[in-house]
């Protein structure tokens, strides 16, 4: 692992006080983000991906409670200690966010050029005219054709793909070091998705920013990410490089996710799914939260939570299957094929 991460998340817990009780949305999440890399956080709905990103932006709802020992270290300070005014100078400036739905995330009553210029006026303290000039450059940079003619357009005059380009331009306006993309292509159709992803990769190389990419779409992860963290029920269950997660997955939940992704040799009518639903985080289950849905669950899974087992220097998985006392299980055929491919990649013979 690289030595000098730009962002260190340590023991992050986020609880929400609701009428029904305390929802433990994030339960002890730790990860690092290196400069210039793309970290994908993958998981199904309710796994805590979005709460993680909102916490990184200081945008959690008022009923969120973050315990004292949670730390978000960015530039030698713990972001969780910041006051609201200090957060404002971080948001959109050092850490920016790309939102999910371009149809609703732009203000319908403000000109798009102005919406892009806003972070510049706020953080660079420049005049409106200068900010609009820069907004025009940004619009060109994200591939808006004839940007000069469209700087005074309103959002309703643009298509979804164009609007998402504007949302990307807003995020990039103040040259942030970290870009958080919360399912930035989920609301777009597939061809537009590819365009936006290509754009983000290109812009990342130009600006050397780091990206935290939140998604439930593993297909998108493969093309975008350097490293992947798989989240389940408010925890990271496995993390590693993109190749390690895709070809040498160790956690049964990761197997399930990969298995439910159709591949070219998927037969018609055999779409796989992970059975069951994620646990209720009002009262998280004892032991491994995934045990109830896991056909490979061991007896210990319902009693004790698995620690992270080291697979390689960059690859860790929290599953008792990696304990030396655990019985050897045979993963799904799809995963076996992936393992075989992994061994080939490692320059070894398939067994």
């Amino acid at each position, binding site marked *: 692992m690289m030595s000098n991460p730009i962002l260190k998340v340590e023991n992050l817990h986020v609880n929400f006080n609701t009428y029904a009780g305390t929802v433990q949305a994030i339960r002890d999440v730790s990860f690092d983000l290196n400069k210039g890399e793309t970290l994908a956080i993958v998981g199904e709905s309710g796994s805590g991906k979005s709460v993680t990103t909102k916490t990184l932006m200081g945008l959690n709802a008022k009923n969120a409670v973050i315990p004292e020992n949670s730390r978000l270290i960015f530039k030698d300070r713990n972001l969780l200690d910041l006051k609201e005014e200090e957060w*404002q100078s971080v948001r959109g400036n050092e850490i920016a966010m790309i939102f999910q739905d371009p149809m609703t995330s732009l203000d319908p*009553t403000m000109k798009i050029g102005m919406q892009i210029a806003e972070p510049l006026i706020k953080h660079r303290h420049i005049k409106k005219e200068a900010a609009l000039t820069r907004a025009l450059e940004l619009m060109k940079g994200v591939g808006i054709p004839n940007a000069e003619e469209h700087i005074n357009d309103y959002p309703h005059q643009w298509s979804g793909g164009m609007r998402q380009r504007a949302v990307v331009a807003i995020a990039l306006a103040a040259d942030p070091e970290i870009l958080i993309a919360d399912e930035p292509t989920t609301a777009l159709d597939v061809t537009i998705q590819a365009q936006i992803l290509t754009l983000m990769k290109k812009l990342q190389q130009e600006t050397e920013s780091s990206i935290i990419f939140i998604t439930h779409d593993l297909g998108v992860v493969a093309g975008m990410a350097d490293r992947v963290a798989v989240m389940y029920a408010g925890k990271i269950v496995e993390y590693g490089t993109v190749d390690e997660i895709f070809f040498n997955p160790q956690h049964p939940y990761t197997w399930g996710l990969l298995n439910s992704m159709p591949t070219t040799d998927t037969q018609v009518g055999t779409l796989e799914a992970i059975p069951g639903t994620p646990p209720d985080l009002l009262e998280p289950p004892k032991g491994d939260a995934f045990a109830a849905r896991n056909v490979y669950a061991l007896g210990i899974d319902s009693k004790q939570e698995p620690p992270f087992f080291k697979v390689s220097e960059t690859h860790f998985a929290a599953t008792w299957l990696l304990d030396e006392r655990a019985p050897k299980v045979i993963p799904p055929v799809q995963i076996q094929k992936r393992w075989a491919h992994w061994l080939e990649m490692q320059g070894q013979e398939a067994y």
Partner: protein
Amino acid sequence: MWKYILKRLVLMVFTLFLVITATFFLMQIMPGTPFNNPKLTPQALAQLKTTYGLDLPLWQQYLSYLVGAVHGDFGTSFQYQNQSVSMLIGQRLPVSAHLGAQALVVGIIAGLIMGAVSARNKNNKIDGTLGILSTLGISVPSFILGIVFVYLFGFKWPIFPVSGWGDSFSQTILPTLALAASPAAITTRFVRSEMIESLSSDYVQLAKAKGLSDKEIVNKHAYRNSMIPVLTLVGPMAAGLLTGSTLIEQIFSIPGIGQQFVTSIPSKDFPVIMGTTIVYAAMLMVMILITDILTAIIDPRVRLQ
């Protein structure tokens, strides 16, 4: 834009024609006659009817009213002899409109501020207090408020004059406040709910993610978007306020048009009923046109066509 406004004005004339026609014939259904003084002899009654043209067949009366209306002659009041309706309205409407406009401005500004404050303090004590105030403002009739104001600020602590019109600005303060309470309360409630919706929208989340402060978000994004639905409320509210309030004018001895609206009906003062109805209808239509234009200015998605 201008073409659209012209089109709307033409439509308005047509609507006015319908209003005139409907009101004219509906008035005839009312029982009794305008001249119900028991001392009148049958001859004198017939004489009066001839003078005012009420002995003619209905269609002739209707046609002559229309012809007169087109020429700006709305007839003569039966109640106030020799007072033309145009004169009557021309003297009294400006007084009511002045009072109504003051109340409208005060009410809307107060509503915009209290609504936004309420929304930003959602579900805490400030919101609760404003909620109670706005419930009171909607449910307490303006004339009760007027009487309370007269007692408090005219009698207990005599700060403001409690009656009259046209001598000083201070005379207008109490009636303005009494009239403004209800629009202020309605606007507060409306702005609050629109603002809450706007503040939870994705574009406000994005504005937060840009690093804007709550104040900047409210002023630059939330207000504009909350105003769009609020405007639809303002048109009818303005028409109601500008055409006078019978009870408030009565309490504060203000020579407005509000009273004419009401007294003309039981006394069957046909020309005045017609005149005031036309004024109200025209005012309502103009206000709705103005709010439509304002909506188009604020909301770029709305096109006037």
